[in-house]
């Protein structure tokens, strides 16, 4: 079995203002061990509800979510699930508990009842892996948004999770902070083998993922490699999403009669593709 998380026929309903809303509709999704998955969707598409389902913060109304074979509905293993699937949220300010960086990172391991020496080891390792070790005695309040968010990630990493779920971790950050987070996540995924599920609506962040899942209205409407997903420019725009500017350029060129394919993303390759297209005309 290669799937770390299995979502089977899951529906999620909630009541607001006396009416029943369905945030997730009979959804099936497997997250492979070691993969980097990006979930895209506009606000209210159900992507955050889905994220909170991966670690049992939300329990399915119907269907099951299995993490490493354990059902999130099982109350006895609730803490195990939370340890295995760590979650990072949008606002870094609202997830840091302590006013000293290393004490904050220690919060998870302390809750797990680990011995002081082991906690120390994990805190140091976690801070090093997000590149914040030299700030271990700082107070989070004086750090930048990107740095704070990296500390939030370290706080989760210190619990040694199998999977990291991030719900729009870059939405409140500036471009520098966003780049810091994406670099950190790629490193954790490629070097430390942590499975990453990243929820975002910044299309550029999806470029380096193994897989992109697009959600709309509580359902998955597209699922595949980033370049395959982004080439469907019209479909994405129809569900309130955007495409990276590189894709948009190729798409607009196509509309103007250039022979280019739209399933390329990186600046370098796009430039080559355009060069080839121009070259073709010359001959």
């Amino acid at each position, binding site marked *: 079995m290669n799937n770390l998380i299995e979502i089977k026929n899951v529906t999620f309903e909630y009541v607001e203002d006396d009416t029943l809303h369905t945030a997730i509709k009979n959804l099936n999704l497997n997250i492979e061990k070691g993969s980097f998955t990006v979930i895209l969707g*506009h*606000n*209210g598409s159900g992507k955050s509800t889905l994220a909170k389902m991966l670690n049992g913060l939300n329990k399915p109304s119907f269907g099951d979510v299995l993490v490493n074979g354990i059902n999130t509905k099982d109350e006895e293993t609730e803490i195990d699930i939370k340890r295995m699937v760590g979650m990072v949220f*949008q606002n870094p300010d609202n997830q840091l508990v302590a006013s000293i960086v290393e004490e904050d990172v220690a919060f998870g391991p302390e809750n797990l009842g680990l011995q002081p020496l082991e906690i120390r080891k994990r805190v140091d390792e976690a801070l090093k892996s997000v590149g914040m070790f030299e700030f271990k005695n700082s107070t989070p*309040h*004086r750090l*930048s*948004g990107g740095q704070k968010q990296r500390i939030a990630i370290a706080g989760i990493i210190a619990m040694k999770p199998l999977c990291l779920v991030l719900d729009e971790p870059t*939405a*409140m950050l*500036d*471009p*520098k*902070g966003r780049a810091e987070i994406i670099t950190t996540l790629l490193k954790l995924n490629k070097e430390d083998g942590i499975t990453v599920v990243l929820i975002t*609506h910044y*299309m550029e962040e999806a470029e380096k993922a193994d897989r992109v899942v697009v959600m709309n209205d509580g359902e998955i409407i597209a699922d595949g490699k980033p370049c395959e997903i982004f080439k469907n420019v019209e479909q994405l725009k129809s569900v*309130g*999403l*955007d495409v*990276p*500017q*590189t894709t*948009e*350029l190729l798409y*607009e*060129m196509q509309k*103007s009669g*250039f022979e280019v394919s739209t399933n390329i993303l990186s*600046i*370098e390759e*796009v*430039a*080559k593709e*355009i*060069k080839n297209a*121009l070259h073709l*005309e*010359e001959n």
Partner: protein
Amino acid sequence: MSILQVKNLTHSYNGNTPFVNDAVSNVSFAVEKGEILGIIGHTGSGKSTLVQHLNGLLKPTDGQILFENEDIWKNPKEIRKIRSKIGLVFQYPEYQLFEETVFSDIAFGPKNMGLSDDELDKRVKEICEIVGVKPEYLQKSPFDLSGGEKRRVAIAGVMAMRPEIIVFDEPTAGLDPKGRDNIIKIIKDYRKAFNATVIIISHSMEDMALLADKLLVMNKGNLEMFDTVDNVFSQGDKLREIGLNVPIVTRVFNKLKALGVDVNENVFTVTDAVNELKRIKAGDGNA
């Protein structure tokens, strides 16, 4: 005539506060009536401090701000009047909503200006049309709205004062693409309806290329560049030096040039890019 002139503006925070030292030193520029000025720069480059001077929320340590050729601090007691003429929309403005109904929240600003009830009613309705708040929402609580709607109501609260200059600090932060487009449209519509001058702080070079007439680049409290969008974005290296960049499409064109294709690198929007490529294609055909 410049509607707003900033002359040798300096702001230094006195010493030992624990907050980021977001000072500004010796900044001068002028904004023409009706234009859109974009302000770009790192977090902590002094952008936010700068814009809080424009409507007198902060008082310059040194230098002057002239609105229609008059120092805004000429009569410090009248500074609240300036704030209705130069509106400032903060980052995440939805967090400032507080009234019981959408109507009274939008009316808060105009009410502070001392307008009559009839005038309030007129202004709120007029602005709701621009920001796309439906009339039936006016009696709802602002806290029952969705995130995007809350932001529109908050922006309407500033627009309802009908400021001649309206300043936005990252108006699209945290929104999804649809929400972003929506806010940009509102800003454009307001400008058109009231012939207003717009100043926007943004991190998105792509949005800036589409929106702004001129760009002001801040770095470490200093004004690094102040020029037309074309002239700023044609200095990619200088921007990269201070940790900023040019729009993605421009980077593609820089790459094209490096690959030996004879293109004009100064394209900053997708539309310009496609036109430039068409030009080359046509040119090659003729050759």
